[in-house]
C-alpha cells in the first residue's frame, strides 16, 4: 500500500505544478449551489466541498458533441479520416460516485467492437479522486450502491485528514507524479487517522431506501408492469435532463454536417436521450417506446437490471443528479421505494 501526504497549504502549489504539466480540471462553484468541472490553474477556484457537478466527468471521456470522421467528397470517390483532438488532462476532486460512473463507461466502450474515440481519450485523462466525509445532500444514494467508499478507478485518491490530505497511489502513473512532486510518505499515524475517517463514515452512510440492494434485481425482474412507471410517466416531460446529467448514460446519435464549400464535412456524435419521444422510433412509423412511462421504466432498467446481467454491476452510482435535475421533481429514491413497496 502506497500512501503519501500533502499538507493543505501545499495544495495550491500542487495544483499549479500539475497545471504546468497538463490541463487541470476541478469542481468550481457556479452559484445557487451548482458546481461544474472546469479548467483551473490554482487551488483558489476549486470547490473542495461540493455537491455533484451539473455534468459528471463523463464529458471528458465522451464529449457532448464529438467528431468521428472528416470527409471530402470533392472528387467522385469520397475520402474520410478519423481523428481525435484531445490533450493530457487531469481531473481533480472526483467523488467516489463519479469514479464509479467512469468505471461503468469504461466497461461499455471497451466491449467489442471497441470505441477508440473513447478509449484513446481515456488514456489521456489522469484521475484524482476525493473522498466524501458525508452526504452531498438528501438526494444522494451512494450507500445503496456501495459507492460511498472508493472502489478503484483513480490514479490518486485524496482523503481529508484535517490539516492535510492523505493520498492513495493506485497506478504507476500516479506513483511517478507523486515522486516527481516529492510528496512525503504517510506515517503510521496518518494511516490510523485514515482508518478513523473510514470507520466514522459507517455511522453516516446508511442504505437510503430501506431496501436491501441484493433484492433490487429481483424486484426489477418482476417490476415491468408496476403502477409506479405510470405514475412517474404522468409527470415526466421528456426533457432528457436525467440522462444528460447521468454519469453512466451514454446513448448517442450521429449526424453529418457539410461545410459551406459543399465538398467537405464531418460526422459527429451527440449525447442522445432515451427519454425523447422519437428515440426508439423507426422510419416506417413504428415507435417502440411511445409512452413516457415506458421510457422512464427503460431508463431505470438500464441502471438497475440490464447492466447487472451484462456487467455484474448497477449503472446507478447514487450521485442523485437525475433527481436534482428533474423539472417534474421525479425522485429516484422515492421511485425505488414505491417500486419495492408495490413488489411486496
Amino acid at each position: 500500500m502506497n500512501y503519501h501526504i500533502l499538507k493543505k497549504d501545499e495544495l495550491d502549489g500542487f495544483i499549479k505544478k500539475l497545471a504546468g504539466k497538463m490541463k487541470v480540471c476541478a469542481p468550481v462553484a457556479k452559484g445557487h449551489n451548482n458546481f461544474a468541472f472546469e479548467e483551473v490553474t490554482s487551488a483558489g477556484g476549486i470547490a473542495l466541498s461540493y455537491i455533484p457537478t451539473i455534468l459528471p466527468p463523463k464529458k471528458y471521456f465522451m464529449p457532448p458533441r464529438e467528431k468521428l470522421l472528416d470527409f471530402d467528397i470533392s472528387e467522385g470517390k469520397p475520402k474520410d479520416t478519423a481523428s481525435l483532438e484531445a490533450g493530457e488532462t487531469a481531473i481533480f476532486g472526483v467523488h467516489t460516485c463519479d469514479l464509479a460512473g467512469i468505471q461503468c463507461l469504461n466497461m461499455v466502450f471497451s466491449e467489442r467492437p471497441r470505441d477508440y474515440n473513447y478509449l484513446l481519450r481515456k488514456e489521456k485523462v489522469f484521475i484524482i479522486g476525493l473522498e466524501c466525509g458525508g452526504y452531498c445532500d438528501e438526494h444522494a444514494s451512494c450507500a445503496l450502491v456501495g459507492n460511498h467508499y472508493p472502489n478503484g478507478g483513480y490514479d490518486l485518491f485524496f482523503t481529508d485528514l484535517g490539516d492535510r490530505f492523505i493520498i492513495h497511489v493506485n497506478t504507476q502513473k500516479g506513483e511517478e507524479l507523486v515522486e516527481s512532486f516529492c510528496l512525503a510518505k504517510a506515517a503510521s499515524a496518518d494511516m490510523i487517522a485514515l482508518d478513523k475517517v473510514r470507520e466514522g463514515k459507517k455511522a453516516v452512510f446508511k442504505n437510503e431506501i430501506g431496501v436491501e440492494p441484493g433484492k433490487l434485481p429481483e424486484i426489477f425482474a418482476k417490476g415491468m408492469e408496476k403502477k409506479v412507471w405510470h405514475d412517474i410517466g404522468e409527470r415526466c416531460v421528456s426533457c432528457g435532463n436525467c440522462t444528460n446529467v447521468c454519469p453512466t448514460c451514454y446513448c448517442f446519435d450521429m449526424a453529418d454536417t457539410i461545410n459551406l464549400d459543399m465538398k467537405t464535412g464531418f460526422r459527429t456524435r451527440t449525447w442522445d436521450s432515451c427519454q425523447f419521444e422519437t428515440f426508439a422510433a423507426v422510419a416506417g412509423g413504428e415507435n417502440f417506446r411511445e409512452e413516457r412511462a415506458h421510457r422512464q421504466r427503460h431508463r431505470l432498467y438500464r441502471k438497475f437490471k440490464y447492466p447487472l446481467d451484462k456487467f455484474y454491476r448497477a449503472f446507478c452510482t447514487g450521485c442523485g443528479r437525475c433527481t436534482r435535475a428533474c423539472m417534474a421533481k421525479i425522485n429516484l429514491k422515492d421511485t425505488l421505494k414505491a417500486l419495492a413497496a408495490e413488489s411486496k
Partner: protein
Amino acid sequence: MTEEIKNSNWKLRKGQIIAAKQMTASEKWFDIKLEDGDLDHEPGQFVQVELYGIGEAPISVCSSPTKRGSFELTVRAAGRLTKYMHGLGKGDWVGIRGPFGKPFPVKLMTGNDLLFVAGGLGIAPLRSLINYVMYNRREFGKTDILLGCKTPADMLFGDEIAGWQKRLDVNFSCTIDRSAPDWKGNVGLITSLIPGVSIIPEKTFAVVVGPPIMYKFVIAELLKKGLPERQIILSLERHMKCGMGKCGHCQIDHPKNYYCCKDGPTFTYEEVKEAKKL
C-alpha cells in the same frame, strides 16, 4: 493535439453503385460494389449506408453472399436519408459500415424443411436467405415461400418471383391485401395462406420477416400448426444507429437486454417472446 485513429470503427468502406432500378413507387434497388472486395456478409445481416453530408441509415442486405463481386439493397423511401438515396444512381458513391448483426441460423436449418413468410418489404432481408437456399438447394428439404403484399403494384422482385413460381423444387404462394382488376391470385392477409401449407413441425424452420404488426398473427398461426418456438425465426425492426451495441437506440424491451443490432436482428421466437413489442 490531433492524432489519427487508425483502427476507428467509424471509418467507412467505399461503395459504388453499379446498377439501380426503381422497383415500385416507394422502393428502389441498388447493386453496390465495394472498392475493398466483397461485403463478406451472411444472410440476414445489414449494413449502415452513409450518404456523405446527409447521414446514415441501417439497410438489410437483400442479396445472397453466394453472389460475389457486389451486394444489393432494396431501399424504401421512408426517412430523410432513404428519400435522398432514391436520387442516387449508377456511378454514385456511398459509405458502408458493416456487415452487422446476427445472421439467420443457416447451419441449424440445414437438412430441414423451410417455410418462408414475407410481408411487404420483409421480402428484402428474406431474399438474402431464399437465394442462398436456392443456390444450395439440395442441403435443405421441402421449401415453401409465402408472400404478402398490399397490392400487386407493391410486389418486389417480380421477375425473380416469376422464376420461383416456375421452379419445381420450391412451392410459392402469394396474396394481396386489396384486390386489383388484373389480379387472379389470392386476396387476403398472409395469415390466410398458412393453414394451406402442410408441414412436419419437428423438422420445419419457419422464417418470418415483415412489418411489426404482422408477427403476432403469423406466429399464432405457426404455433397452431405445432411448430416449436425455437424453429420460428424472426428478423426484428429497430433503428440500429451505430450497429455496435452502443448507441442504445435499438434496444428491445426484454428481460435479456437485447440489442437488435448485435444480438439480432434475427431471433428465434423462443428468444424474444417476452419482448414488450416484436
